[in-house]
């Protein structure tokens, strides 16, 4: 027992190894000796792009057990060469931080607080409101009789932080709906 335990006592190691002053290896704990960057044990490393400004820095997203464990610059990127600014460096906190909203919140007209609402219910309610608004505000022709085929009761703002595919579907669906008031930060 003692023979087994004694070598784990740094003082004993001080006496038996070159580190007599106990300033180096003798003082190292087993945890320190076995330390590894957590990224080295990631299940997967996913190629990504920084979501902040438009420089488009490459990111590596490290995943373990279905969770993002780190986000770092991608050294392979010829744009960013592995670097990230403070915002890009904060990406892990952005995507995993406690500030993120994870549940639908609903505010009834005139209410003073949020309520809970299921996602399905919210989607259904939104679909109903879109159709009702469209019905109520539909314009077929202008005063001169030119076709308009549109609704001015619906508007949308945003897209500069979205994916191209998302912007594409929004533009496609809104246009098919006859909603033309679609805008984003590019105007601003």
């Amino acid at each position, binding site marked *: 027992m003692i023979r087994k335990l004694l070598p784990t006592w740094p003082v004993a190691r001080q006496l038996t190894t070159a580190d007599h002053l106990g300033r180096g290896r003798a003082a190292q704990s087993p945890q320190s000796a076995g330390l590894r960057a957590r990224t080295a044990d990631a299940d997967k490393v996913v190629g990504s792009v920084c979501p902040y400004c438009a420089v488009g820095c490459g990111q590596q997203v490290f995943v373990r057990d279905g969770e993002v464990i780190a986000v770092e610059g991608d050294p392979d990127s010829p744009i960013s060469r592995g670097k990230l600014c403070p915002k890009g460096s904060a990406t892990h906190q952005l995507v995993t931080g406690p500030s993120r909203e994870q549940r639908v919140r609903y505010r009834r007209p005139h209410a003073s607080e949020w309520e809970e609402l299921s996602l399905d219910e919210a989607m259904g309610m939104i679909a109903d409101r879109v159709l009702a608004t469209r019905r109520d505000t539909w314009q077929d022709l202008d005063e001169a009789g030119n076709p308009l085929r549109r609704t001015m009761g619906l508007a949308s703002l945003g897209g500069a932080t979205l994916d191209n*595919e998302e912007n594409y579907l929004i533009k496609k669906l809104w246009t098919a709906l006859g909603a033309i008031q679609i805008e984003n930060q590019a105007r601003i």
Partner: protein
Amino acid sequence: MAEAHPVGFQWVVEAQRRGATVIHVDPRFTRTSALADVHVPIRAGSDIAFLGGIVNHILSNERDFREYVVAYTNAATILRDDFVDTEDLDGLFSGWDPDTRSYDISSWQYAGMAAGSAAGNREIATSAAETTGAGGAKLEHGDPPERDETLQHPRCVYQVLKRHFSRYTPEVVEQVCGVPPELFARVADALCDNSGRERTGAFCYAVGWTQHSVGVQYIRTASIIQLLLGNIGRPGGGIMALRGHASIQGSTDIPTLYDLLPGYIPMPHAQAYGDFSDYVRRNAAPTGFWGHMSAYLVSLLKAWWGDAATADNDFCFDYLPRISGDHSTYQTLQDMLDGKVNGYFLFGENPAVGSANGRMHRLAMAKLDWLVVRDLVEIESATFWKDSPEIDTGELRTADIGTEVFLLPAAAHTEKDGTFTQTQRLLQWHHKAVEPKGDCRSDLWFTYHLGRLLRERLAGSDDPRDRPLLDLTWDYPTEGPHDEPSADAVLREINGHDADGSLVSGFAELRDDGSTSCGCWIYSGCYADGVNQTARRKPGHQQSWVAPEWGWAWPANRRILYNRASADPDGEPWSARKRYVWWDAAQGRWTGEDVPDFPAATPPDYEPAADAVAERALSGREPFIMQADGRGWLYVPSGLVDGPLPTHYEPHESPVANPLYAQQANPARELVDHPANAYNPSAGQPGAQRFPYVVTTYRLTEHHTAGGMSRFQAHLAELQPEMFCEVSPQLAAECGLEHRGWATIITSRTAIEARVLVTQRIAPLRVQGRTVHQVGLPWHWGGRGLVTGDSANDLFGLALDPNVHIQEVKAASCDIRPGRRPRGPALRRLVESYVEQGADT
């Protein structure tokens, strides 16, 4: 650039290490200035005068790259004889109609032809300014514009330019901008010395140039300089827009914008065009690549309406809703305030903080029936009904606000597949790393499933208005636990398919007979060869410095646009040092470091036949292939609503009188007449002295836009934890502001408070014999998040650039006084006292 795009700035630092001179022009001494070789403090809102001074310097000293200018720009083109310049009309160009506050642009045209623009407003003469887009031209065959390659003709663009800018002397630059002549000369000389065959110079800008009532003309002035110096289409040259959001370029290319369809095809205008053929006739160009516009449009319609789109029904062209005026966000805002808008969607945007005149936005949202907010966090725009500043002032009462609000949590970029288009037009795919938690979903999911629900609800409808929705191709495969639609499938649709359903390799394969489909023609080729080109991540160090195998740039993976101009007219590089793309006679092709932005097999000596169309109508020596005349435009005969040449106007709100003309501000600027949008009087108007200081806004490195992605993160919030204003020691002394104390900044819209940072980094300037003080405001704060503060955008009114409807928030006037702002209703009383006194005095 170091402030807002630090990682991009690494290339500036590297260039500097290799000997480049870095010049930073900014009202403030920023983190960029700290490393720049030269910092030029400038009065906010005076850049055209500064750049115009450089144009004058180039022209009066003949420092232009003459061979490039003659061959590649419209310098030699001769203008109509009825064009009259601002220099002769005291600040107005010919064609001004004071009743409509707009120009008739016919007198701006080339002699002998009417040219359409490659981008911008192309149908000005016949319709409202909203029919924007990238358009065609009106070059009648056999009738090319008259040219004088000696540049001596008095009406050639070169001479017009020279006369126009001759007044922009170093002395005028000093008078307008507050930049001393020695400093100005240093900048002008450095630019000229670093341009030509052997060297190139680049401009970088951000919203410091766009957010003005003359924003487009700012960039135009830079374009003139770069064309005169031969810095367009060449490595190390260009004008770089440093855009601020991950995919703001993408959301312009595939526009969530009212006036465009994907690929800069204009939205059809109700009054401007009749049917499909009329639309195509008036938008397609006989010359340049816009000559294929009908193929791009038909392929788009096929992508959207599939089998329902046939030649017989004009490919469902009538399914497209029509615009009839300005429906931009600020127009929508007014309509919302007037109760005309019922439902509003916010996708990752926070107008309560991020848009000018935030108060107006919050008041307007209180008039909505319903609001859907999709964001990562509980942003100010989602909670205006309970904690907006207007609740505190008593202007809004929660119980009175009938707006129904849905806050739907969004998925982060790590939780979805998709592409961002960054600021150099590079599409980069990001892979999903993990599933989103809870109710978090991607906007792809939201839009797809919303569309699915709408279609389900309308199924069986025989109302013609529902046909576009029911006929829509909306059958994307879904995957995973949340039935996430496949972003890959969407990208394939964007790339386009041929008649066999195979992916096309580029926009050259698109046809206007309905045999091809393509969701965005400029993105066509992003999935060439069945490979997601945007997902390519070949390490940069394993390829050439152009790194063509990282991601995919539109169009056709070209990294520098108009790069034919990097070779001389004969196709030889201008110099060995600056070689980029050149004609390889042996192969009979253009070749080089990049994909040539030119028909690959069109030799330099190609001359078009009289009946040639589209790109075949341009000669082998005309690099600007999107332009009707194949040339870079020093002078813009068509496409802009506020003048063919940039000219200095004061900002809409300015304490300084325009020393050049009686015309104080851009005559064509758009104004919003609304009580919530009162304006400060400008110099020369009664009460102007109530707002004696210039105010400008900007970003800080530590924060992002309206703060939704930074004020809520502790590691960023701690770095800039409070709203502050930057003032010079002199202004602080003048107003009694105390360093680290509080200041209240007041405009006609509202008053906000900020901590006071007294710093020499924002120096007062001498302008027209008087001292002009500037107040600097970061605009990241709002009422929610880990760190909160007043929003700088609340101070600004809506005065817009008439070409693009972008608001002027980079230069306005204000007052500043020590202490915190009043609370409650007293805040409005303070502001009203300013407005009233301003009007009276």
